[in-house]
């Protein structure tokens, strides 16, 4: 169950992370003035020449050379979170509260979706968009709801773009999102180890280590991942200010995003936004390691199935019927 959990000493042995210290110290030792003039600094992730010497420059500089989240100590995590908060204030005038809450002990998240109950109202989708600061310009959505013909169980046969009064007689509705596979193929595809499965089962992306190659998206059999072609545009008054480093913080441009089971909420005992918003109770969420939880009740007493079970990806997302 937990066999492919990352071990930090494993990571350190990877060539990617070897010499990280020396690479950093090497680059740091370059004079700032010389670096500021180099072509690399015009790419956007690194501050422009005008900002050199300012506080913003210093913060962005430190941000650029930080480690992969999994290699950071708690102090380093706290430091980057504070930098990101400060940067959000400086560049977007946003007062955000970012956290890096670790996984809870004895918790493995699981999700169940009742295909008898879902009536296609899509309130989960809007709640997700708002909670996770998804790009309003391109209408990015992590959740899809498909209108299905009776007897069909593969969403690709359904209509994912309906817009009419629902529910329609003799149709049913089926939602998809990232299924947080126990044996997630997406994480194996990543060349920079920017995406992995956390000990509580949530598959996350370190947006600052993602290079936007989209290998993971190609490896996901469930269309669970969304690539952003630009920094998400969210009207300032609609930005969700409670953020998590691995969750709904506003992603930089050109990164891979996906459902994180609302990590910023669930690690504080709260339901994901979609579950809370669902008006029909079709969405069940809870701790798989708690024998008394709702999710365990569903697994024990309902007819459940998972999508493309034959692939062996072991999604922690079950469909069930009443």
């Amino acid at each position, binding site marked *: 169950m937990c066999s492919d959990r990352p071990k930090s000493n494993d990571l350190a042995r990877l060539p990617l992370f070897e010499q990280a210290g020396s690479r950093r110290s090497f680059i740091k030792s370059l004079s700032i003035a010389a670096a500021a003039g180099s072509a690399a600094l015009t790419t956007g992730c690194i501050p422009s020449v005008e900002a050199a010497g300012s506080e913003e420059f210093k913060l962005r500089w430190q941000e650029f050379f930080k480690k992969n989240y999994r290699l950071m100590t708690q102090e380093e995590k706290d430091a980057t979170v504070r930098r990101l908060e400060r940067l959000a204030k400086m560049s977007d005038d946003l007062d955000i509260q970012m956290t890096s809450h670790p996984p*809870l002990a004895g918790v493995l998240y699981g999700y169940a979706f009742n295909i008898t109950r879902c009536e296609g109202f899509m309130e989960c989708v809007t709640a997700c968009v708002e909670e996770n600061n998804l790009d309003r310009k391109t209408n990015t959505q992590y959740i*899809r709801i498909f209108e299905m013909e009776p007897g069909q169980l593969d969403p690709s046969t359904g209509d994912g773009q*309906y817009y009419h009064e*629902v529910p329609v007689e003799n149709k049913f509705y089926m939602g998809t999102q990232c299924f947080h596979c126990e044996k997630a193929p997406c994480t194996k595809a990543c060349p920079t180890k920017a995406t992995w499965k956390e000990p509580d089962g949530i598959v996350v992306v370190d947006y600052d280590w993602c290079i936007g190659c989209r290998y993971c998206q190609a490896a996901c059999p469930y269309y669970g991942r969304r690539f952003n072609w630009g920094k998400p545009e969210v009207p300032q008054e609609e930005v969700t200010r409670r953020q998590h480093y691995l969750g709904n913080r506003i992603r930089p441009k050109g990164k891979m995003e996906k459902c994180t089971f609302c990590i910023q909420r669930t690690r504080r005992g709260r*339901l994901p936004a979609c579950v*809370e918003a669902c008006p*029909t109770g079709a969405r069940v969420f*809870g701790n798989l*390691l708690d024998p008394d939880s709702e999710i365990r009740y569903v697994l024990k007493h309902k007819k459940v199935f998972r999508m493309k079970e034959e692939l062996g990806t072991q999604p922690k997302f079950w469909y069930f019927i009443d």
Partner: protein
Amino acid sequence: MSMITVAGRHTGSPSIHGSMAPIIFMLVLLIICIAAAAGNTSEESFLDEVKAVDRKFDNRSVPLDHYVAEDTVLAKENYQGGPFRVLARKKRIERYKCSSCHGDKPITVNEGKELTHADIELEHGRSDAGLTCIDCHHPEKRDYLEDKKGRKIDFDHSYQLCGQCHFRQKRDWLGGAHGKRVTNWAGDRVVFNCTTCHNPHSPRFEKRFPATYSVPIE
């Protein structure tokens, strides 16, 4: 399956020589097969592994950012994890207490339609034999509901009444496959009451337009 492909690949290999070769080869093959079999079982058993966990989890150990703000009452039944709470109803019923009108004293009816409940559309029960008011409401003690056995039922505990016909839903509601929790997956369990979501006079959800629409992925 894996044995055939591995064998096919290796017998064609010209690099194995000497009399020990077949024995070593068979040994390697054996190890591969055992490893493959072990790998398969671990894959299939994820759900079994999960289901095998029966150590109690202390839901109160989880640090919470949000607490349920609504009024709740302790349910009169237990779920698999013990006692739990449901969202209270009485304060949300506009004209509760009912006995403020339904009593001995005379009432002047100005807003006739509303005050006589003529605005309520009853769409509950079979189409040929729909329910009437006193199928659920107590005929005398107007501040209560009444079940088929003649027991008085508090509006805050309407699940006791609904469950007598909708017993399957009630069972799933207790267990957690019907209805929903409020705000938190952890902490003390608080769930929606039947009548928090369903209008008891017309329990089906009304048709409406979805909250948004989707554009094709890329």
